[in-house]
């Protein structure tokens, strides 16, 4: 077969990676480039979308060269991207009108608070499945329109376009001002607060609520479909898939059946559960989101449990406290003791996400006695990730009426055996790591390959999946119950720390 590879582009928060996969789903070559993080004010986080585009121009040829391949041997390219990050650019020049506002940026907290006070604010969650929060795109678009002179008029005329990173890259790849395709995929659109979760189209009520002109929005497309053909960087290659990174990981883990879930352990952690063709409304603090949509088939929905701080707590242990030199050393230090010594760390650094959603909570270390060593603290750091996973899984089980039977894991922290065993112990289900840890990239590649027939069907993709490691639960049930109770009491102690008048 002349078409030997599928390319994935993972446009992430800190870097952009381009990976070539072969027919067996094996990684053939990798090229990566970091981009600059701009912090112009406290709480603001920005990226330069043009820099990210230039990085792609460099790494894609590099990944091809490493494999000794030319674009003609690439069956298709799929894109996975950091979600919610907002890019606005000029349709005629192709130049971003401002820097991209990253999902971590909290500049819209006042906008969100004002919107939340409106009597009709309840419609947001009802229509789009997400609650009002700073990190979704709509408040950011609103803020940019309000704070950039003349921008609203240009947006209403359709001279300025909105997109998340996949929209921007696809528009640039397909020609930019010369015929660029302005689209978004349904998973990314589901993170804007502007898409109706049932009809999967832009919702006029939501557009009105946020004051976002329809003319600036991309067309919503399925996650796998040939959107267009690249005219630059990899001329002739079909662009055949786009997914938000967490949804791509769900796809890469081949969680295609109802009840299958994966958790990606990174700076934060995101547990997604496939709930099939019906969106399930959470009553336990989870988000209703689109998992993927294959061509013209009905969309597959997911429940998402977002945990803000997991790997970031290990980074804090390293950089903030200086107790370890590298992140993996946390396991070495934690193994110097047998248990947490009665100590618990709840990392509510900027409030708690799922399932609590308490923005006024702040982190604590409880149970300190003179017995506690840095080994116990290291245990408590890792256990915090385990217990936060347990809370989200409990919420998933309650919302979906399904009982999670296995947890598929991926991400950098899966190299930590102590943590993976602890997660199996506290969930009381097997934890499984697949052979390809780069599930975000693999998911984008799978989706693109599926769209163009490089892989025949979902079953074919499943056959590429292999178990690389498995951890089985081995904790005494009484100990598990007692420790979970301690954790929950620790969590309660983080609530109500920031008093209303402390806020700006």
């Amino acid at each position, binding site marked *: 077969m002349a078409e030997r590879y599928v390319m994935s582009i993972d446009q992430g928060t800190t870097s952009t990676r381009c990976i070539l996969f072969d027919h*067996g789903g094996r990684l053939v070559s990798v090229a990566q480039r970091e981009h600059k993080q701009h912090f112009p004010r406290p709480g603001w986080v920005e990226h330069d979308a043009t820099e990210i585009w230039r990085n792609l121009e460099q790494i894609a040829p590099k990944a091809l060269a490493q494999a000794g391949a030319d674009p003609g041997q690439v069956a298709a390219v799929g894109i996975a991207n950091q979600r919610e990050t907002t890019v606005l650019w000029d349709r005629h020049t192709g130049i971003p009108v401002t820097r991209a506002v990253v999902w971590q940026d909290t500049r819209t907290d006042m906008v969100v608070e004002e919107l939340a006070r409106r009597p009709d604010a309840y419609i947001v969650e009802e229509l789009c499945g997400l609650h009002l929060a700073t990190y979704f795109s709509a408040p950011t678009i609103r803020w940019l329109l309000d704070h950039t002179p003349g921008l609203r008029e240009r947006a209403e005329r359709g001279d300025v376009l909105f997109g998340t990173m996949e929209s921007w890259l696809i528009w640039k790849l397909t020609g930019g001002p010369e015929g660029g395709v302005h689209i978004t995929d349904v998973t990314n659109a589901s993170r804007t607060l502007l898409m109706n979760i049932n009809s999967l189209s832009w919702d006029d009520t939501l557009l009105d609520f946020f004051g976002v002109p329809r003319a600036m929005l991309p067309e919503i497309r399925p996650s796998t479909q040939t959107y267009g053909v690249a005219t630059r960087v990899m001329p002739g290659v079909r662009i055949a898939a786009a997914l938000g990174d967490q949804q791509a990981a769900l796809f890469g883990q081949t969680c295609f059946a109802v009840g299958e879930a994966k958790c990606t352990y990174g700076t934060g952690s995101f547990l997604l559960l496939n709930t099939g063709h019906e969106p399930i409304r959470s009553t336990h603090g989870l988000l209703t989101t689109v998992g993927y949509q294959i061509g013209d088939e009905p969309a597959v929905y997911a429940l998402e449990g977002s945990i803000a701080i997991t790997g970031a707590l290990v980074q804090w242990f390293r950089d903030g406290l200086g107790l370890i*030199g590298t992140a*993996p050393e946390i396991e*070495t230090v934690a193994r110097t003791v047998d248990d947490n010594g009665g100590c618990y760390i709840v990392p509510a650094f900027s409030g708690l996400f799922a399932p609590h959603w308490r923005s006024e909570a702040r982190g604590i270390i409880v149970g300190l006695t003179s017995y506690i060593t840095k080994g116990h603290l290291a245990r408590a750091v890792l256990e915090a990730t385990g217990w936060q996973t347990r809370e989200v899984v409990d919420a998933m089980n309650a919302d979906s009426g399904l009982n999670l039977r296995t947890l598929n894991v991926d991400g950098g922290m899966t190299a930590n055996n102590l943590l993976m065993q602890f997660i199996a112990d506290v969930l009381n289900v097997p934890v499984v790591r697949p*052979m390809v840890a780069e599930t975000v990239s693999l998911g984008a590649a799978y989706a693109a390959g599926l769209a163009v027939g490089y892989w025949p069907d979902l079953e074919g993709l499943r056959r590429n999946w*292999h178990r690389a*490691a498995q951890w089985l639960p081995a904790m005494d049930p009484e100990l598990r119950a007692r420790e979970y109770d301690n954790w929950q009491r620790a969590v309660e102690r983080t609530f109500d720390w920031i008093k209303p008048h402390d806020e700006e």
Partner: protein
Amino acid sequence: MPGPVQSIERAAAILRLLAQGSGRLGLSEVANSLGLARGTAHGILRTLQMVGFVEQDEATGKYQLGAALLHLGTSYLDVNELRSRAINWADALASRSGEAVRIGTHLQGKLLVVHHVFRPDDTLQTLDVGMLLPMHATAMGKVLLAYDANAAAAVPEGDLEQFSRRTIRTTKELTRALSGIREVGWAADVEETTVGEASVAAPIRGYGGLVVGAMGISGPVERVCDPHNRPRPDLVTFVRDAARAVSRDLGAPRW
């Protein structure tokens, strides 16, 4: 006996200089203090920087002692760090070879398994991370004995413990086997630990080429070996390539 090596003498003088006073000096200050040409001083500083003994401040361009020097007495590559850095390559090796992959390091005369990737056939397998295996009877253990003087010193003289009729019996026999391993750069164990099992391993190197661990595959002898009971050349190549890729990521020079 050969005379002193001038560049090492100069490097030592630079380290002494940086250890004194404020500890932050620019290139000209270093060159002038020691009466060296700027180019010479720069070359030595760059080399010291590469091995971690010297760090350069990004803003000012000044040099100071590096963190690696402070940990010289206690330093080893943390086994959890090794696993993190090797995980992608170990997965790819399992996927290509179709066999289980393990990474091991030396611990008090034994081989400690620090990473394990299942054979990619989705059968029931158990993680054996943390298990201790005999050094002289395993491919990974023999790699470490061949390249790590401290590991070799921990083997007692005389008769060696037997696990099968193919296990190496005496230290003399072992010494011969190890020199053969150093010649070819990889090791095998064909039914030396367990009847019916074979494995192939190669060294993982860190800074300066120091061997910090071994990486290998193992499986049924009829899959890992050819009809003459010799490891299949394609599998040996996969193992060596994977170990080299990890070594490159750990900062080993190309070899």
